[in-house]
């Protein structure tokens, strides 16, 4: 490894080191004393940088000095005389260096040689790299040429058979392998299928029947074959749909407007039946043929004219490769369109967020509501309240009155309240007379409520029933769970004593004979009848319910699970009719609703007679 290189020996270990080493690689001893030329002058440490910087130039001067290049046969006398002449101008250290250079082999030349060697190696590597890249590039070109030939074959006329009766598939195969036809054309991978070449091929193949393609294309539409009637004048193939941003498509800059036009009319894009490819432009081939997409022959850009031929071919090949990659599926196209829409709308305010809502001038509801309210107000004010004789008494109401009269004072009744404040006026008008009657009969009864607001609603009920000093209802939280818990686990007296709770706060259903449900929800009645009542068959159930929910409990009344119930104006007692509820106003309300329904019915007939617009709406 060290052949040819000057070596130096370490003074300590005696082993060899390279001449330029400053320390021994074996023992680490400093070799600075040995790293010096004979007669070298050690420069002082504080030597100015400018002097140090001039050293390379000095070496260069030495290398190119005529006295060092010249042959040794130079006349010593002349040299001596010149040396003697410059002795007075040359510094002492330079003289020594020159003397050393004359005496020994050129040290600077060795350094230069090393540099040159390294440079040559680097160039060799680069050269070999360039060759391999060139080979790869050639392979690339060949591959792209094959691809282009395939497309040229595809651009053949879409007619099933040509004038000679050759089917299209055969023409394509022939176009792909022209060398097989008589071996006239040798396949050159660098060759491209140009229009001229195709014309030549057609001329050779058709012989006398050959008609130039341009003549065919310039024919009038009535002279053209039927299958070509729909084709445009230019032999353009449908281009491939793509949505790649323009920045990524510098080569396709001339086609961008066309692509944008195509994107603007998505509904007109033909779609391959088999693959769902989106094809833009006129499709000459049937979609179910070999290729699902057609490639437009890209005309060379004007900017390419100045390029060399090989560069143009490479550019064309790249363009074709890009077009091949631009085949996208319909779903991808929709996603890209959605993404573009999202990007374009980014930062815009959401519709309707800050925009003023367009007030639809439809005052019909307001008019209806106001009319209804005015009618009811007028009826309340002007129609006198009187105790009109009720027309009929419903069966549930009649039974309710009968059971209420049959209750003995020794029996006990549990009042279960579960209604909202909205239903309070209706239910209180029904319940207050009942509670007053029970109180007058000396019946013992207890009240619980399944809703929290029942606590303060009961206060109003008690006032209407004129019940003084009656305990407020006990709130039982839990709704259906609480009812089931009451049914399954009745609190005995011992348990009540153990919990040190007031007995009246924990109702034991075994102590009661009647249950009166006061509610505005049929679910409460259902829950009681389904969860609690089956466990206490001796417990008789009565109900006071709002009119809108009465229908839902009628089956329970019909089956005898509810003995009787009160509801609506028909269930009101005489005292309620005279005191709080004006039945005439109720009738006015019902008549108003009937009139409104008739009005709506007739309004629709008028609107049906109006002509309809094209989009199906009313004119």
């Amino acid at each position, binding site marked *: 490894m060290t052949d040819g290189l000057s070596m130096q020996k370490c003074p300590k270990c005696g082993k060899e080191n390279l001449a330029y080493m400053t320390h021994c690689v074996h023992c680490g001893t400093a070799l600075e004393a040995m790293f010096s030329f004979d007669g070298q002058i050690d420069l002082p440490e504080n030597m100015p940088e400018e002097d140090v910087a001039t050293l390379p130039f000095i070496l260069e001067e030495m290398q190119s000095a005529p006295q060092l290049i010249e042959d040794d046969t130079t006349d010593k006398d002349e040299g001596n005389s010149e040396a003697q002449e410059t002795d007075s101008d040359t510094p002492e250290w330079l003289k020594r260096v020159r003397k050393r250079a004359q005496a020994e082999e050129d040290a600077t030349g060795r350094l230069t040689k090393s540099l040159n060697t390294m440079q040559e190696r680097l160039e060799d590597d680069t050269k070999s790299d360039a060759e391999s890249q060139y080979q790869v590039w050639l392979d690339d070109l060949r591959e792209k040429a094959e691809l282009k030939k395939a497309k040229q074959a595809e651009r053949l006329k879409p007619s099933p058979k040509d004038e000679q009766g050759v089917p299209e598939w055969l023409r394509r195969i022939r176009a792909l392998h022209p060398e097989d036809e008589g071996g006239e054309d040798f396949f050159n991978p660098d060759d491209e299928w140009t229009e001229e070449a195709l014309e030549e091929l057609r001329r050779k193949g058709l012989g006398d029947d050959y008609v130039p393609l341009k003549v065919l294309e310039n024919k009038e539409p009535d002279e053209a074959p039927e299958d070509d009637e729909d084709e445009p004048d230019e032999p353009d193939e449908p281009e491939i749909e793509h949505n790649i941003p323009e920045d990524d498509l510098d080569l396709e800059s001339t086609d961008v407007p066309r692509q944008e036009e195509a994107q603007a009319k998505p509904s007109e894009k033909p779609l391959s039946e088999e693959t769902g490819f989106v094809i833009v432009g006129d499709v000459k081939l049937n979609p179910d043929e070999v290729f699902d997409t057609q490639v437009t022959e890209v005309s060379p850009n004007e900017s390419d004219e100045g390029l060399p031929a090989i560069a143009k071919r490479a550019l064309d090949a790249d363009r074709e490769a890009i077009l091949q990659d631009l085949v996208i599926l319909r779903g991808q196209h929709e996603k890209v369109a959605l993404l573009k829409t999202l990007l374009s709308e980014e930062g815009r305010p959401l519709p309707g967020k800050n925009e003023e809502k367009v007030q639809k001038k439809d005052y*019909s*509801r307001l008019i*209806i*509501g106001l009319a*209804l*309210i005015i009618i009811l107000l007028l009826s309340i004010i002007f129609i006198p309240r009187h105790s009109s004789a*009720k*027309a*009929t008494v419903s069966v549930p109401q009649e039974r309710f009155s009968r059971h209420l009269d049959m209750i003995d004072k020794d029996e006990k009744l549990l009042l279960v309240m579960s209604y*909202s*404040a*909205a*239903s*309070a*006026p209706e239910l209180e008008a029904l319940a207050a007379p009942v509670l007053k009657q029970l109180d007058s009969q000396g019946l013992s009864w207890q009240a619980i409520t399944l809703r929290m*607001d029942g*606590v*303060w*609603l009961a*206060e*109003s009920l008690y006032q209407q029933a004129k019940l003084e000093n009656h305990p*407020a209802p006990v709130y039982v*939280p*839990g709704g259906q*769970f*609480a009812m*089931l*818990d009451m049914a*399954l*686990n009745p609190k005995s007296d011992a348990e009540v004593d153990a919990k040190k709770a007031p007995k009246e706060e924990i109702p034991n259903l075994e102590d009661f004979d009647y249950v009166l449900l006061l509610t505005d929800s049929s679910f409460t009645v*259902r829950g009681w009848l389904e969860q609690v009542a089956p*466990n206490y068959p001796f417990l008789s159930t009565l109900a006071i319910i709002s009119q809108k929910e009465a*229908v*839902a*409990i*009628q*089956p329970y009344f*019909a089956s005898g699970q509810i003995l009787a119930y009160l509801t*609506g104006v*028909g269930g009101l007692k005489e005292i309620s009719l005279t005191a709080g509820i004006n039945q005439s106003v109720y*009738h006015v309300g*019902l*008549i*108003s*609703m*009937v009139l*409104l*329904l*008739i*009005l*709506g*019915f007739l*309004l*629709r*007939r008028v*609107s*049906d007679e109006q002509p309809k617009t094209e989009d199906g709406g009313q004119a």
Partner: protein
Amino acid sequence: MKKAVPLIVAVLSALLVMVGIFFREDLGGWVSVVLNWAIVLSSVALLVVLARLLFMHIGYITMGRQGFIYSLVAVLAFLFTLIAGFLFGVENPTFLKWIAGIIRPLETALLGLVAIVMASLGIKFFYERGWNALTISFAISAMVFLILGLGFLQAIDFPPLQRVIHVIEGLPMIGARGLLIGVALGAILMGVRVLTGVERPYDD
């Protein structure tokens, strides 16, 4: 494991309650425990919802959100009711009178508004749908029962008419009975599905 534990708990709870109904003497106490758990949990859930509602409105107020004045009213009303309830007690007659005096007219007015809106929707129903079998049958049934609700026809002493009225008044009960049967069958099916783990409402 993550799905098995809730399933086991749900199935065991349902079975315990169901068996407790049949063997009330022996398992009534255990069922009561389970039901009390459910009551406590529902009450805690109500508290959580209340706290969530309160903090949401406080957030609206601090952010100055559009319409925050309503949030301010809601928070003040909540605090007033809470403080008054703590100070006077929920059984105080004055406190109950105040609350009832506020809540009764509000809810009653709301119910009256619902009646007006429904009348308006009745008209819109015809306007939107036109005349077809559905709208015509709706109109006829609504008007018939509104007229029957007046009570004038029942006052006419004509037995055939009374029989007709009786039949007509029985129609809603037929529909309600069908609905109840459907609800009962659906409840049975849903119970079986929960017991067998096919339906897992607790997974969400």
